[in-house]
């Protein structure tokens, strides 16, 4: 038992350990994405998923191809893209809140703004 303990804590950190961490993070993101109703919670879940992918890029680069930098730069660019995605998504969420007064997914059953939609139906009548 003590031998196992010292083996566990000496030597290099296995690559699987990093991948296991990112696996847990990814699937908790999937869980949140499916189960939560609030748009902001869905965004937080997407953020978790993107972050776990970043860990994988960095780990594969460091362990398998330490002399190259592809994974490093891919993680860098992924961080920039997710910053963009968050900014636009939060602008959309705030706009939705302004129109509907909540950010639940269930209340989003039409894309048009409510007043225009009612005007259109009146025209159709």
């Amino acid at each position, binding site marked *: 038992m003590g031998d196992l303990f010292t083996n566990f804590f000496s030597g290099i950190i296995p690559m699987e350990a990093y991948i296991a961490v990112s696996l847990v993070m990814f699937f908790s993101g999937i869980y949140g994405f499916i189960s939560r109703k609030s748009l*902001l919670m869905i965004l937080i879940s997407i953020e978790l998923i993107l972050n776990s992918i970043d860990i994988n890029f960095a780990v594969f680069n460091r362990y398998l191809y330490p002399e190259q930098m592809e994974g490093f730069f891919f993680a860098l660019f992924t*961080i920039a893209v997710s910053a963009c995605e968050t*900014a636009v998504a939060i602008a959309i969420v705030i706009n939705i809140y302004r129109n509907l007064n909540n950010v639940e997914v269930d209340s989003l059953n039409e894309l048009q703004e409510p007043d225009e939609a009612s005007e259109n139906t009146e025209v159709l009548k």
Partner: protein
Amino acid sequence: MAQQIIFYILAVIISVFSIMAVTSKRLIRSATYLLFVLLGTAGLYLLLGYHYLFAVQVAVYAGGIMVLYIFAILLTQKPGEKITPEPLRQRVLAIVLSLVGIVFCGYIIFSNITKVYTLVTQSELNTKHIGMTLMGTEKFQYLLPFEVISILLLACIVGAIMIARKRS
């Protein structure tokens, strides 16, 4: 020895807080747990020896994106308001799906991973080297993606303002 202990502490922090972030009943708490997850990830980058990625993660993710989230939460949520719980059926479905996924992917990864890799000790990535690689136009250099990202950021600024501005 110290590296291993730090890694396992970070791994526990990341796993626990990422699960808490998606199950918490209050949005502001989920955002805080997400912040802990992001900082833990930054610690993992530090352990891997990618100091520049660590700095970017802390500055962009833990700094910029989290501020955006907190602003959005405070703008759309009344303080102290709890989210109404989702229907049980949906939660059970999500738990089953993610457990099946985690077992499936875990099995594939751990039965196929070979132990051929060796962690080459490498000195800290030279910042000058990173800069040259980011700005070069030759093979394995990244000027074009860098410019594309800058255009994307510009488009995203314009788009976010367009969407979020008040219509008169």
